């Protein structure tokens, strides 16, 4: 009844947890918890990368695991925690769509993502091909989170989680991108975080708040 080898099962379990985590983020109103969830997502990615590296014996996966550890598990959450403390934003306000509603939309999105990933999974030869659908789902769910949130901070968490989803997608479809690209992407994420940090302070200085409804004046007039 259970023909899959144990490590594939473990990978599947990890990807299922990633999906669950995406939903947890979608429903979470506390920004600190949101960041913790992001860190957990990083840990899961790390575990999945290490497992894949061990399974396939590809050394570059160990490097990207190290990159994940440094950047997504340690550095980014640390920066975000610091930002939260310095800026004093702990809670997001009520999201644009209420949470059960968001969840239901999220479910539809997951079904859509699985459908989208179906042709790709069929062509893939990796052990993790069934996880591609989950990666797409995580990307789209993070996108949904960015749409429904009002606070800049939660949008950023959504952005980073989308990046995690992309990373996971690359891993499950092709065992990761070439090293040079992965390094470049990591560098971009890092720089984006720094730019955002500066940006948050600018916004706060100007508006005394990180609520994005202040940023809705530039519209087509008349």
């Amino acid at each position, binding site marked *: 009844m*259970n023909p*899959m080898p144990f490590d594939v099962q473990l990978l*599947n*379990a990890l990807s*299922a947890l990633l999906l669950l985590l995406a939903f947890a983020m979608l429903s979470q109103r506390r920004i600190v918890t949101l960041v913790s969830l992001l860190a957990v997502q990083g840990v899961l990615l790390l575990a999945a990368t290490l497992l894949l590296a061990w399974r396939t014996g590809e050394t570059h996966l160990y490097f990207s695991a190290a990159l994940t550890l440094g950047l997504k598990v340690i550095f980014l959450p640390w920066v975000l925690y610091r930002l939260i403390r310095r800026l004093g934003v702990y809670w997001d306000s009520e999201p644009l769509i209420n949470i*059960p509603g968001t*969840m239901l939309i999220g479910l539809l999105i*997951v079904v859509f993502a699985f459908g989208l990933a179906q042709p790709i999974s069929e062509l893939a030869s990796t052990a993790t091909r069934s*996880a591609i659908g989950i990666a797409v789902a995580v990307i789209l769910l993070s996108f949904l989170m960015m749409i429904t949130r009002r606070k800049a901070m939660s949008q950023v968490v959504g952005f980073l989680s989308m990046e995690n989803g992309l990373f996971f997608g690359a891993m499950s479809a092709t065992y990761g991108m070439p090293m040079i690209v992965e390094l470049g992407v990591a560098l971009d994420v890092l720089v984006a975080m720094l730019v955002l940090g500066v940006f948050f302070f600018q916004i706060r200085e100007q508006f005394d708040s990180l609520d994005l409804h202040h940023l809705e004046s530039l519209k087509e007039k008349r």
Partner: protein
Amino acid sequence: MAWLTQILEVLAALVAAPLFLGWVNKCRAWLQNRSAPSLLQPYRGIRKLFFKDAVIAENASPLFRLAPYVVFGAMVLAAAIIPSMGTRLPFSSAADAIALVGLLATARVFQSLAAMDVGTAFGSLGARREMMIGFLAEPALLMVIFVASLISATTALPVISERLAVQSVGLYPSLAFTAVAFTMVLLAENARIPVDNPATHLELTMIHEAMLLEYSARHLALMEWAAALKLFNYACIGFALFVPWGVSTTATGPAGLLFAIPLLAAKLAVAGVGLALIETLSAKLRVFRAPEFLATAFLLAVLGLLVRLLLGS
């Protein structure tokens, strides 16, 4: 042999249900640093109520008197269907898992009708809230059962349990998700803490207790016993779906039954601790947050279903 198991199971449910409730209460008291009530406290409560004279409101209809017996009967019948000790149950061929959900719903309908029957404010308030919770919890419960059915390709609870028990140990994210969803449904359906607090009569928040306010004596005793049975039944459904190992099957024979009884006791003991732990660690939700809680349960169950379909695990 099968009939022996059947009779034993129903008897065990009737006897053990208040004990299980007592155990949960005791654990809770320990965890909260209170002096614990006796394990037998629920029995004492029920016995005391049976010796009292029943007082019934003047405008109560026959339905009001009938309801406790229906509710209690439904719970006993449910206990007969659920494979808590053995999977060879003559009764269970009468109803599969979906019918079981229906049986539980029948009990709920009668309880709510009876609560509204007298026409007091609290009664209808409790009934309305109970229906709201039930309306949200039922689909989640069904989804949980569907996932298990999908894995074992049947909706008959004993067969599900048997098939899940024999398969090799593996990681099943789908089952893990549904287990969490099921726990949430269990908490909501049995008026446990994040949704309702069984220990208080605070009118603004109570759900289950509000429906029982008009009952007294033997009717109340039956209702409380039925509530204990319900908790017991839910726990046993959980065991059947998620930790089915050790139930006696055709393969194991009478020796298996001897083994299954202490194992059930052990599972119940652990479940009781777990339940008490959850109740101690979480805070009561506002009534308006309860739909969110149950939507999450539903979501988890559906996610389990999707994961099962996609990953095949």
